[in-house]
């Protein structure tokens, strides 16, 4: 069956932060001239005459040919700094720039690996340097939506290959032989006819004098020739990390640094009537305290009280002594309890179809078996281990920031409007980030730091404590799904209906879902169901919503993969066979569109997981084996969880088998780390995480009420990669979505209990 429900493009700004990032990048004036396609047009530029000499290649996003600048052997250092993508120094050192923010996804290592591979150098000879934030030189720089891999794959391979081609040309020129007789091999060019070789360092100066070939025409290596990609390559910052060197946003030091806290209304959107500022200023170590009105935009500057102190501790203590008379009129009055009641009521009644195929009611009335279930999951916080923070310094009309941000390029535009500073006077430095998970796609912390720094004559480090981090997140929205499934006499799934809630921003037109809050028929990922009906009832939401790890997929995978299992059980059919039936024939529902479902890849990973996960083998009493599949962020993942449940409903996840297809694994170490982390995150989330709120304020305040999984609860994790010819895609997210249903389906097998509310602690189960 060809299914139109699946042939839609992802909704900008909603389903994937990637679209948001793209849009933000476009807004940045510097890129707008050239960001006209998915991967902006690039050309390469050489710079010779840099300090120390050698060959330097940089991307340029400019359309006008600038290669000339390279020809006079002088670098135009104001426009193209030596901090380019590749730099080959005469001493043999190869410096490769890492362009995107490192949030733990390993990008600071694997993007340079792509360049080094095509450049054909030993990884050991490479020094990686974090790049500046500069769209002109580095193109889009962001971390989100697992987009960095697909977006950089071609341009970075070309960057390496162009340099290699120039080194080959340099050697051919030196020896007076044809280029076809010269081969690149691990930092040398070898003369095929006589075995002579020249090092890249020896060739760098000659190479720098040659014309730059078009990146699209240079030959790229075959995968079978790879020496770096696919290997276990440890992170480039490891030594600094294990010896405690300053790397993170929170580690930023500057002379005369002041430490700031920024206190906002516990109920979202509240503003400041008054505060005991004089008493605060009289405290020891307090340098200043003032109110900022803010602009009322939740991801920019909310109203609050800034306190500046000589030390973080004094700032934190002053926050405790701060008394604010909040104006609650504009604030959220929302309550999780009320939301739940409201949603139950709305989704229990027929609504308007927002997407439809076939005739669900007919399927329902003709069905042999009808299954009705209500699934619900809570709001979640990102809870990065490094609380939000940012350092800003305003001097001589210029604002400089040190921002642990997943979208550093969007900061200058925002601040320019907020503080009326010309974008050219705003400089953003990127720092290693202690966890992203989507939280730092939004730059509220950077706006706060800059707005505070704008008012004082010293550099300011804004530090959130854990409590403010949990209280002022952009939450993964909770959800409600009243599902009905229709099975015919042969146990085939003939219809599925989802009566659900889609939150829309309060005060808006009610048409666009909140960030990461959409529900689409394609999320069911069962293209063979002939009759599908989605009733997405919109409800306004003032609590800030945000993209979480695998936005929307992180919750919807659990709902639909649980319900499909539930239906398989009702049909008295094997879950694996039933699930495969929903995929139908192996095919790509929209050929060439990477974000549209490919059932062949789904079938392959599902079968692989089943095989490796001992599907069908008998289990002991109170043990269970659960299967789940999901396609998200361009990656295909099937997972099997094996669990044991004791008589007190303590659940031990014994083993998780993951089968994955992301085209090709770029870094075995970093890639597997992401999958292992996603599995742990999945268990952590389903165990006992829930954000609740009353009167517009979040109740959970620290890791005692919002727990993370501990060491002892980790399962054995086995990962099986299915290599396919598709372009490699990202791993920050897609391993996460299938996990929860694999575990809850296993709990059903072990105990007969179907989990329909998350976290499982609500249903009396405990992860141990």
């Amino acid at each position, binding site marked *: 069956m060809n299914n139109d429900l699946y042939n839609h493009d992802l909704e900008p700004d909603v389903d994937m932060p990637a679209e948001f990032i793209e849009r933000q990048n476009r807004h940045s004036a510097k890129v707008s001239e050239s960001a006209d396609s998915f991967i902006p047009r690039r050309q390469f530029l050489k710079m010779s005459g840099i300090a120390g000499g050698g060959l330097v290649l940089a991307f340029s996003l400019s359309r006008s040919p600038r290669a000339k600048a390279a020809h006079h052997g002088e670098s135009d250092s104001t426009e193209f700094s030596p901090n380019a993508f590749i730099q080959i120094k005469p001493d043999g050192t190869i410096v490769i720039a890492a362009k995107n923010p490192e949030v733990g996804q390993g990008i600071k290592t694997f993007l340079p690996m792509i360049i080094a591979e095509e450049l054909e150098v030993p990884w050991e000879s490479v020094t990686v340097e974090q790049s500046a934030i500069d769209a002109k030189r580095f193109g889009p720089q962001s971390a989100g939506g697992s987009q960095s891999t697909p977006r950089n794959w071609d341009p970075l391979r070309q960057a390496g290959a162009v340099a290699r081609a120039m080194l080959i040309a340099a050697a051919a020129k030196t020896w007076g032989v044809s280029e076809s007789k010269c081969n690149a091999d691990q930092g040398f060019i070898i003369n095929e006819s006589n075995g002579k070789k020249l090092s890249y360092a020896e060739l760098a100066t000659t190479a720098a004098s040659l014309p730059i070939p078009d990146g699209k025409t240079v030959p790229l290596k075959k995968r079978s020739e790879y020496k770096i990609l696919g290997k276990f390559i440890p992170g480039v910052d490891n030594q600094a990390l294990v010896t405690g060197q300053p790397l993170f946003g929170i580690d930023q030091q500057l002379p005369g640094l002041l430490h700031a806290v920024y206190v906002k209304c516990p109920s979202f959107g509240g503003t400041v009537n008054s505060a005991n500022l004089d008493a605060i200023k009289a405290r020891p170590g307090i340098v200043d305290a003032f109110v900022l009105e803010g602009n009322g935009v939740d991801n920019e500057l909310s109203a609050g009280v800034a306190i500046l102190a000589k030390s973080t501790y004094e700032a934190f203590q002053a926050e405790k002594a701060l008394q604010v008379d909040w104006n609650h009129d504009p604030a959220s009055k929302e309550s999780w309890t009320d939301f739940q009641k409201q949603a139950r009521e709305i989704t229990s009644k027929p609504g308007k179809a927002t997407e439809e195929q076939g005739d669900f009611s007919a399927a329902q009335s003709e069905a042999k078996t009808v299954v009705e279930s209500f699934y619900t999951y809570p709001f979640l916080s990102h809870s990065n*281990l490094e609380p939000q923070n940012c350092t800003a310094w305003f001097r001589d009309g210029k604002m400089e920031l040190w921002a642990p941000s997943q979208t550093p390029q969007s900061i200058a535009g925002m601040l320019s409007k907020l503080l009326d500073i010309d974008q050219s006077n705003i400089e953003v430095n990127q720092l290693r980030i202690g966890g992203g998970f989507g939280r730092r796609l939004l730059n509220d912390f950077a706006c706060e730091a800059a707005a505070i720094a704008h008012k004082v004559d010293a550099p300011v480090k804004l530090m959130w404590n854990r409590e403010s981090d949990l209280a002022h997140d952009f939450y993964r929205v909770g959800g409600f799904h009243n599902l009905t499934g229709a099975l015919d006499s042969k146990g085939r799934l003939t219809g599925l209906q989802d009566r659900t809630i889609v939150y829309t921003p309060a005060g808006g037109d009610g048409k666009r879902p909140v960030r990461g809050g959409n529900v689409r028929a394609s999320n069911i990922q069962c293209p063979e169901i002939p009759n599908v009906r989605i009733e997405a009832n919109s409800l306004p939401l003032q609590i800030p919503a945000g993209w979480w790890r695998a936005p929307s997929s992180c919750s919807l995978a659990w709902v639909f993969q649980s319900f499909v299992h539930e239906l398989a059980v009702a049909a008295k059919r094997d879950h694996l066979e039933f699930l495969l039936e929903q995929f139908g024939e192996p095919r790509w529902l929209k050929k060439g569109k990477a974000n549209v479902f490919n059932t062949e890849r789904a079938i392959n990973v599902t079968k692989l997981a089943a095989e490796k996960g001992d599907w069908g083998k008998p289990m002991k009493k109170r043990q269970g084996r659960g299967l789940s599949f999901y396609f998200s962020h361009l990656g295909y993942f099937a997972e099997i969880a094996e669990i044991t449940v004791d008589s007190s409903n303590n659940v031990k996840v014994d083993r998780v088998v993951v089968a994955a297809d992301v085209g090709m694994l770029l870094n075995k170490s970093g890639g597997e780390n992401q999958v292992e982390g996603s599995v742990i995150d999945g268990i952590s989330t389903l165990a006992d995480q829930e954000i609740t709120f009353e009167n517009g304020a979040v109740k959970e305040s620290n890791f005692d009420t919002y727990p993370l999984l501990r060491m002892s609860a980790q399962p054995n994790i086995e990962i099986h990669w299915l290599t396919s010819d598709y372009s490699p895609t990202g791993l920050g997210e897609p391993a996460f979505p299938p996990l929860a249903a694999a575990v809850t389906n296993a709990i059903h097998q072990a105990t007969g209990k179907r989990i329909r509310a998350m976290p499982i602690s609500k249903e009396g189960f405990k992860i141990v």
Partner: protein
Amino acid sequence: MPTISINVNGELREISDIDPNTPLLWALRDHLQMVGTKFGCGKGLCGACTVHLNGAAVRSCSIPISEVDGQSVTTIEGLAAKAHKLHPLQDAWMEHDVPQCGYCQAGQIMSAASLLSRNANPSDTDIDDAMAGNLCRCGTYKRIRKAIHSAATKGGAA
């Protein structure tokens, strides 16, 4: 405000002009500019701030500086006994590529080092018990366990 003297990583450090209730964590970070020790929760719940006080792993966010006056503190910056030779755990962490974001790892290593100094050959359960107070949001637990075992085999109590 009294002057506090502590021995940090073998060096005597004096801190004056400090509120005696300042947690050791912030004294290290803000007053001594040693930022390897991290802040995660401020309440002894996450372990990101773990250091050694007289050889034992403690949560530096929950100990006032006044209580460590005259005592010895080892932080991640001083874990390697010599500048050019890392602690076996640090080597194992790099070899197994434990970090994801890396933010929790200083605390993880400090807890692990304290474990190995007491128990040269810990079992999985010993490791789980000793590391129970250290959270990793990125979920690097499998590799932490592996790295501790691997350091132990290489005489990790060093």
